[in-house]
């Protein structure tokens, strides 16, 4: 499935929501989050963004945003921004999200301390991503 497509996001959220530890991981966190792939000269000239909201211990609403600027209107509790190569490193487990945020490779808007406290729950996302075949647009053969 193509990274940052609606189909890919649906599959990842389905897997994340199926995890028994998710309610504990989400407890006390801000209601919603947007993840943004920054504009680049490659496959994302207009950037890409996805948004999700949690309630009752699971993700209840999510969508790929048509325009990266929609994030400004939604004003989610957290906005996580990074260029594609950094997202690839994070999704492949080759980079630590907390270290990436602290070093500035990933820009986080919102209460970073809440996210740092939940760094131990990273396995929920890692396991979900392992179950979803991810194809990156810059690696699609042609």
């Amino acid at each position, binding site marked *: 499935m193509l990274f940052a497509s609606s189909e890919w996001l649906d599959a990842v959220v389905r897997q994340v929501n199926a995890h028994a530890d998710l309610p504990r991981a989400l407890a006390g966190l801000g209601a919603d989050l947007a993840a943004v792939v920054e504009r680049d000269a490659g496959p994302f000239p207009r950037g890409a963004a996805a948004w999700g909201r949690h309630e009752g211990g699971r993700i209840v609403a999510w969508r790929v945003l048509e325009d990266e*600027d929609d994030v400004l209107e939604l004003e989610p509790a957290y906005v996580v921004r990074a260029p594609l190569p950094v997202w690839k490193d994070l999704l492949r487990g080759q980079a630590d999200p907390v*270290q990436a945020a*602290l070093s500035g490779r990933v820009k986080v808007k919102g209460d970073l301390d809440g996210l*740092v406290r939940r760094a*131990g729950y990273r396995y929920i996302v890692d396991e979900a991503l392992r179950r979803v075949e991810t194809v990156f647009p810059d690696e699609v053969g042609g």
Partner: protein
Amino acid sequence: MSERRKGIPEALMEQGVRVATRAAKVVLDDPRGQEVLAAAVGVAQKGKRQLEEVQGRVLRAAGLPTKGDYEDVAKSMARLKRKLRDLAKKVDEDRKR
């Protein structure tokens, strides 16, 4: 061609980043370390917010736009952009009928 020799400041910076990365990993692997790091990040973010508030007050007193003003404009523009997009879609649908 050989790589340019690094200056002392660059070498020190690289070494510093390596040490900090190793230290961060040790801290993050320990739940107590995670809590300490989270608290430190919270304090730093609070300090940054307070600084921005002071900056905002100074800019406002000088009759200049603040970061918040720019953010409000950006939000309004994003809303307008989305409404135009919705309208364009509606016009397209009406045309097809």
